[in-house]
């Protein structure tokens, strides 16, 4: 098998490009695709300070590496989620990458900063773990970016992520969510700009990028994400992709170019109506934002556990 560019030995085949690539030209392809996405959607300018949300997984570490390689001023932000060994390991991968790359890293531990972790917070708030996790991450990203004076938050959402989310939003016709599913969300009062520079690259390519760049990352899936609906959507989309290479790309980019605009009008009105959370000052449609409610529920839950658990364990009582 030969590289499409140099005819040297190939290390990866990418069926949606109907091409094989050697190490050097595959890495160049990844850099070119990120450069193209950043330019196409006006995500970032050279000289801006970018906060990269890093989890220890392949996508976020690849993103950080790509942005640094392209000359961006990219600081990592790692959130300690408190999901047992999984979180301990993910933190180790992030710190190892930061040390090897001499890249600046900010760490926020949910337990230390806010008094809860994802398992206890999700339980107390009666949310699915992935929901509590997403809510927590969004709040911490926003706060860290604003407090630190960063120009944008970059996340490692790739083409597969975006296609899977799009599939879920279309299946259930979440039109307000469809309106906001964009590769760049501009800065607004209380929200930093958010960018997704990996939207032109698939999940398999990001894993390959890490292997070829020698970036160690956490291969194991989060134990709390098992059965997550997005994993099922990804599986379904990959079944389609296997028979119809390029289908995920056409689905997502066709949505952006032909449909996305049609959903935005209703959201503009809703965004104008946001007030400020009376606890933390973040934008919210209510008096207290969902994150502050989660923190409060978790604090009550922590205090209530010994009391509320004892009757159940004892098999009776009020």
């Amino acid at each position, binding site marked *: 098998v030969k590289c499409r560019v140099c005819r040297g030995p190939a290390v990866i085949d990418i069926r949606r490009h109907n091409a094989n690539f050697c190490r050097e030209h595959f890495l160049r392809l990844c850099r070119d695709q990120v450069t193209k996405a950043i330019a196409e959607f006006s995500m970032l300018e050279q000289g801006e300070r970018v906060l990269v949300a890093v989890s220890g997984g392949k996508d976020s570490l690849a993103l950080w590496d790509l942005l640094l390689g392209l000359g961006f001023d990219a600081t990592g932000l790692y959130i300690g989620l408190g999901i047992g060994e999984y979180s301990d390991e993910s933190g180790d991968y992030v710190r190892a990458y930061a040390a090897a790359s001499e890249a600046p890293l900010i760490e926020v531990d949910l337990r230390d900063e806010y008094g809860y972790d994802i398992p206890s917070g999700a339980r107390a708030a009666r949310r699915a773990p*992935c*929901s509590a996790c997403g809510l927590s991450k969004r709040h911490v990203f926003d706060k860290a970016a604003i407090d630190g004076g960063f120009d944008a938050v970059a996340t490692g959402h790739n083409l597969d992520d975006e296609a899977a989310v799009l599939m*879920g939003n279309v299946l259930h016709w979440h039109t307000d969510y469809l309106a906001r599913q964009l590769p760049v969300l501009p800065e607004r009062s209380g929200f930093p700009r958010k960018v997704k520079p990996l939207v032109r690259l698939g999940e398999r390519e990001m*894993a390959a990028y890490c*292997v*070829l760049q020698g970036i160690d990352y956490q291969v194991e899936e989060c134990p709390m*994400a098992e059965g997550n609906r997005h*994993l099922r959507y990804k*599986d379904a989309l990959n079944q389609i992709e296997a028979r119809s290479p390029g289908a995920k790309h056409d689905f997502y980019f066709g949505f952006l170019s032909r449909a996305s605009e049609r959903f935005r009008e209703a959201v503009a009105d809703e965004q104008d109506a946001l007030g400020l959370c009376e606890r933390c000052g973040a934008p919210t449609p209510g008096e207290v934002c969902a994150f502050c409610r989660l923190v409060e529920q978790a604090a009550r839950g922590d205090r209530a556990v010994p009391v509320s658990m004892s009757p159940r364990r004892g098999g009776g009582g009020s």
Partner: protein
Amino acid sequence: VKVLLRNPKREIEVDGSMSVNTLLARLELNRESFLVIRNDELVPGDAMLSGDDRIEIRPVISGGALSEVPHR
């Protein structure tokens, strides 16, 4: 061919020499969802594997807190 699989981590042995794509098909694994690594190096789908090779089949799908709503 000795094959390391993940999630959960385990090793299996597959008889005979074959291409990477044939190995994935035999294990009923979608080639869009996995990378194949031989002796720490990536190998493309039509590379031939021999009995001495140690192979890792690494899943590339990750899920977790993907959000429909990045922010309001």
